[in-house]
């Protein structure tokens, strides 16, 4: 499908500062009391935003000038902590939706969750993220381009080289990031593999298994 291909993301950038931003901060746990992901967008970074507002400071996610940003710039170990997919779900549902994240490094589960949603996370050096953030600060309307295939990020005259592991990059570029279809196509191989696992033949799981309540 053409529109599932993530070759390039273009748009305005929004910066969130700080290392080790965990998923509890991206979407506080109380908003996880839900059975759908709808409506999470408006709560992205809610507690950080409120606390800054209390001391008359503004979180970037509250800056009206950045409300149409689609590329998120972050620092190190972004998305650590809880595995909640609610975090990238909140980001992709915030305003127009974050469509790519650029940062120094990402927590593994967060990265995987983003891939599963078609959101590229590009890793760049510390110096380069600083340069990109400076460009965004200098001109909030600056047009950023994340080239997923070439793994570069460009704004104006500045182009920095980043990286995305080859597997996820291919998935994103070829539009195959929604993994279920591909996994389903290996059905027969899955049963073959399963039959080679000793514990699948033990009765212990089955014997007591009586199905749902």
């Amino acid at each position, binding site marked *: 499908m053409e529109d599932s291909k993530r070759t390039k993301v273009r748009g305005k950038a929004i910066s969130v*500062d*700080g*290392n*080790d931003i*965990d998923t*509890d*901060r991206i979407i*506080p*746990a109380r908003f*996880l*009391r*839900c*059975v*759908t*992901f709808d409506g999470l967008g408006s709560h992205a970074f809610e*507690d950080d935003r*409120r*606390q800054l507002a209390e001391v008359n400071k503004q979180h970037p996610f509250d800056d009206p000038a950045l409300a149409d940003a689609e590329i998120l710039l972050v620092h*190190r*170990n972004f998305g*650590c*902590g*809880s*595995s*909640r*997919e*609610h975090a990238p*779900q909140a980001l992709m549902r915030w305003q127009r939706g974050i469509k790519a994240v650029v940062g120094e490094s990402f927590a*593994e*589960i967060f990265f*995987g*969750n983003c891939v*599963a*949603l078609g959101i590229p996370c590009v890793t760049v050096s*510390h110096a380069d993220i600083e340069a990109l953030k400076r460009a965004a600060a200098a001109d909030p309307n600056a047009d950023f381009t994340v080239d997923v295939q070439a793994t570069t990020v460009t704004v104006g005259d500045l182009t920095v080289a980043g990286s995305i592991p*080859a*597997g996820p990059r*291919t998935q994103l570029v070829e539009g*195959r990031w929604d993994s*279920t279809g*591909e*996994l*389903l196509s*290996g*059905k027969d*191989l*899955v049963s073959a*593999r*399963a039959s*080679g*696992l000793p*514990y*699948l033949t*033990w*009765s*212990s*799981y089955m014997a007591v298994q*009586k199905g*749902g*309540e």
Partner: protein
Amino acid sequence: MGKSLYKKVFEKHAVRELAGGQTQLFMGLHLIHEVTSPQAFAMLRERGLSVPYPERTFATCDHIIPTHNQLRPFQDDLAEQMLVELERNCQQHSIRYLSPQKGEQGVVHVVGPELGLTQPGMTVCCGDSHTSTHGAFGAIAFGIGTSQVRDVLATQTIAMGKLKVRRIEINGRLRPGVYAKDVALFIINKLGVQGGVGYAYEYAGDVFDNFSMDERMTVCNMSIEGGARCGYVNPDETTYEYLRGRQFAPKDAQWEEAVQFWNSIRSDADADYDDVVRWNASEIEPMVTWGITPGQSTPIGSAIPFASEFPADERSVVEEAFGYMDFEPGSPMAGKKIDVAFIGSCTNGRFSDFEEVAKALQRNPDKVAEHVRALVVPGSQTVRQRLVEAGYDKVFEQAGFEFREAGCSMCLAMNPDKLVGRQLCASSSNRNFKGRQGSPKGRTLLMSPLMVAAAALRGKVADAREVFKA
């Protein structure tokens, strides 16, 4: 060169290489809970997909369940709705639900091992980052996101890249009063909160050999806090002793076959590792965190470090922690006045955790300090039942602790147990992130259960070795 357990188990479960270079990996055990599964089931419905291996998925409810009164319907409509949804999904897909009514409910990482579901040589996954806990059995166990929960339900597989393996070897004897929790906090302090990204941790050496299964689970649980998606201990007699006779463990002739299989997946003596780190057990002291990441910790006897002691790129998080916690660098952690004490969670909510504390309380006539709210929350209904049978519920209550029903409780902010305002909480859980315990300004100090108890009695952070002299 021999192979590590990680490599052997990965290879045994590898279905095929996918076009993107990742591996399609078969999942031996899939655990689900009420928070990260409803959207996955909704996606299955949208796509008209079924669950081909329903007998390999087990459900429980832990995050949202209240721990003061579990009567249905819950007072919180949203929580009630989530539980109804889970029950409906399990029923529709013939998935075994470990329900409160049957006394099988509890924190997912407590009940899986307790029922014998978690076994060596398996791949285990759950939409929860602390799935790393199950690695204590010599399983490859890791947390996944909701889209992957959908994948596992629909195919019993996920797409995954191979991790590197770091062997963490700690030899020698731990000093008295040093617990598995301290070992976990020590490792994260040394290797950093993102030191494990891209790695599976293999825990080895005298300390892990001598640990009980509960202790191994505590350390494996916190692998993710050091960035490692999974951590494991090679299975041995301790593992088999624990599993023998449990409800879902293999029996009779299959038990013999199982032990053979389990022995075969142990890391070879000459296994190849991507990295090896070694410490001596005597270096480890009782630890307590002072900041907003599990890596920001110090031995109880030491002072909070100065920002200048950290590498330049860490200083901003250190400064942020000082501001948020309202702590002065250079001041000792001992003596910091606490408001709440919480013993529980998938890190330290098992029988032996509570037993250790109960026995110490029996030696010490003191009561919980007047200004402190202290909670004891068993990790499962079974743990709770065993504590009651041992009479420990009375010990806790007489000392001034609230003895609650099983659940995640104050580990996170999804049920009525929450911090209020800027309260400072001594906690046996695993995360001290900003706002983690329910108040956006609440503050958490991670430590071992006995250190939490010591803080509860004194009303301030204290060295448990002094509070509970043998």
